[in-house]
């Protein structure tokens, strides 16, 4: 990223953190968690412990991180290297990400982009740039309204299973828009905290249907003439598929989470209400049934900024749909300028 772009983004991030730091709330048991952040030089700093809120905000305002994270686990010594931290427990977390979903709109809006010569094209991405032969070719996942609907559908399914199947109280389940192309769901302050990695694999498999054995389930179902009312949607759907031979695909039953996130006890998670480095949107808690993440997560204003866009598919942000941009200078609202620059698809025209 050019130094102009970095300066621009850092200025914007600084403005946000100086004015809206009170939005950011430290997670429960923050003294027992590891904090980490990525600076604007792309360097990751980890194994930081925080003892007071004041200490945290001092770090935030001093460093103006490009991304800031906290560990999903609690430790006795959060500041020590991983093998000496002494694990005490972890939130039960889930990641629903566009990459794990089968969407048809993907073919319309995803693309590859060469970081060196800024060429672009439709997928599949070539090994090296078709124009300059550079290996610095990146695949871009774009998010559209259809994608958001599909992500929401998975999140709703997940929350339903957490409540109905696993018996987790809704008030302990937090749903966040990640700030980029997915949702984070976090189960906090429950007995699930103590689950080992192995036990988390079982939970992840239960939700994704990995390792499902239809014969075993069929044998269990053979004791029912119909599904008892106290049983869950998941079981009712399975019953419909297995016993009633309804062509309701199994695909509809499992949830498409990324299992590695759920089972990784060393994972660090983006801080809620901090900014996503690849979009400039904030990660925030949402009401899953009724949310418009690409409006609710916008923090910057609509001041006019002139940018040069290499390429951008059509995007709907703040309830306004923008046409695709192809190698053109254009004046856009600040939030869109930040979005495109953070993605590396545009440069700011003059010093800002």
């Amino acid at each position, binding site marked *: 990223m050019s130094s102009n772009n970095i300066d621009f983004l850092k200025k914007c991030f600084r403005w946000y953190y100086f004015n809206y730091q009170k939005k950011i709330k430290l997670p429960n048991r923050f003294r027992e968690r590891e904090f980490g952040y990525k600076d604007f030089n792309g360097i990751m700093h980890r194994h930081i412990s925080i003892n007071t809120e004041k200490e945290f905000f001092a770090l935030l305002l001093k460093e103006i991180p490009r991304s800031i994270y906290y560990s999903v686990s609690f430790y006795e010594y959060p500041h020590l290297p991983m093998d000496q931290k002494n694990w005490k427990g972890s939130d039960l977390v889930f990641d629903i990400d566009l990459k794990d979903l089968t969407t048809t709109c993907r073919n319309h809006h995803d693309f590859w982009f060469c970081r060196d010569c800024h060429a672009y094209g439709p997928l599949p991405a070539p090994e090296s740039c078709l124009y300059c032969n550079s290996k610095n070719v990146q695949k871009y996942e774009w998010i559209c309204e259809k994608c958001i609907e599909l992500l929401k559908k998975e999140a709703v399914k997940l929350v339903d299973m957490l409540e109905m199947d696993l018996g987790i109280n809704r008030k302990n389940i937090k749903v966040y828009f990640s700030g980029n192309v997915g949702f984070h769901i976090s189960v906090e302050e429950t007995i699930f905290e103590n689950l080992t990695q*192995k036990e988390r694999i079982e939970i992840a498999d239960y939700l994704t249907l990995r390792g499902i054995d239809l014969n075993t389930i069929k044998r269990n179902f053979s*004791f029912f003439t119909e599904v008892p009312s*106290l049983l*869950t949607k998941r079981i009712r759907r399975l019953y419909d598929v297995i016993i009633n031979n309804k062509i309701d695909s199994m695909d509809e039953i499992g949830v498409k989470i990324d299992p590695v996130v759920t089972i990784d006890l060393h994972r660090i998670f983006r801080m809620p209400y901090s900014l996503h480095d690849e979009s400039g949107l904030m990660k925030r808690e949402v009401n899953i049934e009724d949310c418009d993440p690409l409006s609710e997560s916008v923090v910057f204003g609509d001041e006019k900024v002139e940018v040069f866009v290499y390429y951008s598919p059509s995007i709907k942000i703040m309830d306004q749909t923008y046409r695709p941009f192809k190698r053109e200078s254009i004046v856009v609202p600040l939030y869109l300028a930040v979005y495109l620059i953070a993605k590396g698809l545009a440069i700011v025209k003059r010093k800002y």
Partner: protein
Amino acid sequence: MESKSPLGVRDFVKYPFLDESIAYIKPRAKDYELGSFESLKHPDLFEKIKKRIIISIRKGVSPVFDNMFEDIETELLSFLISMIIVRATDNNYIISRFALAEARRSEFFLRKELKYEDGYDIIRYIFQKITNFPLEFSELQPPFLFKLNIIHYLKLTENFHNPEWKLVNRIVGNGYVFLKDREVIRLIREGSYRSIIQRITSFPPPVLSKDLQGIVEEAKKISPALKIERRISTPSQFPPCIERILDKIETGANLSHFERFFLTTYLLSIGWEIEKIVNLFSKMPDFKENITRYQVEHIAGLRGGRIKYYVPSCKLLASHGLCLSNEGCGNIKNPLRFRGKRNNEQ
């Protein structure tokens, strides 16, 4: 969970590992000084101790003696002293194998309880005593008579391999897993197994007489060596994920289904003979030769679907929690590509 015990002394014989059984016999055990125990002075007791240990190791099930209710004291003492002798072997295989054999012996009695009117209450009581987890009666129709909290279920079934125990294949609702009576009995077996191991390993190293030491030596003689020969020509070193599984076998621990599958595909790929792999698995406390042989041959593509299975990718291993990332494997996608740690630095 505290309730008046429905058990009598005959039940202590059937379930000698329960706290109340141990509490019953412990005061009487004081009369026996193990450092000077002579087999000739207590021939019945010595015979029972020896059989309990040796048959457990050989057959995997502790014997049920015909006269077990005739001399309850000897019967219970034989269990208690057997545990102390097993402790003296300091051998994880023997400890696990003995615990499993005793747990299996009791499983036989638990099944019989089902025939009696109060069978379900007895089973529920023993389950709660041995696991410390509450077991509730379910709202579902038979055979799903019980329900157990998911977390407790996961803790107890951690080492089970059969797909019917995987959470994804269970009837689950509102935080509970529904269980059939026979499944509860299987879980009691697991709970007993763990509790016996815990009890044995909590004993201090005992001083034993020559006669009792003789049992220790015999037990060791008939047990497989746990040390695994790890020097292999190709590749020069096992990858860390495989090393960790071998470490587990050496400590006498059980492996998950996926760990066994992965280890087998890997060893087949680097050219191990089926015989050698079966031999490796014989070090595990729950080893059954015919089942193991079938499964290894199945993975090798010699049986069943005649499909040869490939070694899982690092990514798949990670999703099963078996990849020790940060171990410096380099940028490989499959453990077979591992060519020794830090080779570049040398």
